[in-house]
């Protein structure tokens, strides 16, 4: 059954959209990522204009993250204080990101920016996670006691120290603010929640316990993507409510299933699976940039 999307101005199969939403929703719930890094490229592949895909995806992530965070609030695995610091950075980053997006759209380089951002970030994060989780699995197989790393790095020398009780941390507010801002920029430019970069950054840079990482990142993502949705809706008119609704019907159901699968799996297994997926998307997008495209020309609606 075909449905016409009012803002994207095209007709798409309704079940394809719900299916995509569901699939990405399951992954989103399992890994605590918004799933946007998979959904946005998938939307490009089915022909949704990039500007619409990015803005609409932000709206859809609001729904799946909200659905996910409620489960974490009940389990008390959300660090609200840390989440708020991340969020303040996130709002600043998103505001800047939307402006960059707008500018690059005008000069016709927004697709390149989006793809390059994906390749760079996914490649970096994916390889880091893959190597790390592989190491972790090897260690647990040798049944050696896990290294208790109490790192004292440059991060601990920064001012503005705060106590984050839920995360059991006493660190400067600057690193989480910067992590939040970086994620905010990505949210606006790539149409992602940014969980795929925030989750590793929270674990490896901030040193947060794995248990609270997912809930806290979802908490930040809800507000940053909600803000991004409003920015895109009012400045670029690119939020397609019908597309978002169909994606989120599949997405919220998938996220619930995914959260339950995630609880049953070991953290190392989860991370290695996520790493493989991240690297897969990275490779596909990278090849698209390097291989000679079948059509060298593209029609834009004008840069005015």
């Amino acid at each position: 059954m075909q449905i016409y999307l009012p803002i994207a101005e095209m007709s798409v199969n309704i079940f394809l959209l719900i299916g995509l939403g569901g699939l990405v929703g399951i992954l989103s719930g399992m890994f605590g990522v918004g799933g946007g890094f998979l959904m946005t490229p998938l939307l490009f592949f089915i022909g949704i204009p990039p500007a619409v895909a990015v803005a609409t995806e932000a709206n859809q992530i609001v729904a799946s993250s909200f659905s996910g965070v409620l489960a974490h609030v009940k389990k008390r695995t959300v660090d609200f204080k840390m989440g708020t610091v991340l969020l303040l950075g996130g709002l600043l980053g998103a505001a800047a990101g939307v402006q960059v997006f707008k500018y690059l759209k005008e000069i016709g380089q927004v697709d390149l920016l989006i793809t390059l951002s994906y390749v760079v970030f996914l490649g970096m994060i994916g390889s880091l996670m893959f190597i790390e989780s592989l190491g972790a699995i090897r260690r647990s197989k040798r049944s050696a006691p896990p290294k208790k790393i109490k790192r004292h790095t440059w991060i601990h020398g920064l001012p503005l120290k705060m106590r984050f009780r839920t995360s059991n941390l006493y660190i400067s507010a600057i690193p989480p603010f910067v992590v939040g801002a970086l994620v905010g920029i990505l949210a606006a430019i790539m149409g992602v929640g940014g969980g795929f970069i925030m989750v590793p950054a929270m674990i490896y840079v901030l040193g947060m316990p794995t248990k609270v990482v997912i809930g806290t990142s979802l908490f930040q993502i809800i507000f940053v993507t909600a803000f991004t949705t409003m920015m895109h809706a009012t400045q670029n008119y690119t939020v397609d409510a019908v597309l978002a609704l169909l994606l989120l019907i599949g997405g919220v159901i998938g996220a619930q299933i995914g959260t339950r699968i995630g609880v049953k799996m070991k953290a190392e297994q989860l991370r290695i699976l996520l790493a493989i997926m991240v690297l897969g998307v990275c490779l596909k997008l990278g090849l698209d940039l390097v291989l000679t495209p079948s059509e060298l020309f593209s029609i834009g609606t004008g840069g005015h």
Partner: protein
Amino acid sequence: MARGGTDMRIIFLIISLISSTVAGAQETVVSELSQDGVSITATFDGSEIFLFGAIKREAPVNAAAGQLDVIIEVSGPPTETLVRQKERKVIIWVNAASVEMDRAPSYYSIAATGPLEELVTESERSLRNLGLDYAVRVANPEDEDFREAVIRIHQRNGTYTTEVTPVKLTEETLFTTKLAMPVNVVEGEYTVKTMLVRDQRVISTSTSTITVRKTGAEKWLYDLAHEQAFIYGLLSLAVALLAGWTASEIFRRVRG
């Protein structure tokens, strides 16, 4: 835009009057569409419009008269078209050169009783911008690659037809054809120009328009998104939060 359209119509009216006098024929064409509007609704997946026409004669045609043909040109509202060309920079492909099209309709199709090149002379086609090679133009002849790309991309999207749609002409008097509007048409006024051709020259034309509009929920959402963007944004968020909460509640009750 509306003004330009009227001017064009007046010009064509004059042209057709002149050409009919020159041809000296008392043949005029009349045509009617099965519908003059296309509504884009949620379930819109293209539309088919029938065109019926007849040839009026004040006197019988003499036996020496040349071949009679009918050409129907459908042209969508022109859009500002910027074409970009990718170039390899170091190892990656990036958008480099770009060219603004002089003229490019958003939709273009030809229905006729035969191949366009055989039905009318080159000068007629040039005069009336008939056929893709005249309807799509770039200002600079060096940008021919870009012009071809526009045609190619539109043809792949189905917004420019590759082949001439057949027109059924009965007894040199009645004709009918089916105009297919693809799913990805843009909103606006589509000009349908019916041309009567005798001896490779257009002797009479008749113009009508098809208005393509979003209607119902589609129109409401589109208008809200553009005119009340802030409210639309809040509405989108409200729907998202409600859906997220509903799913969470349902699953909590189902699985405890």
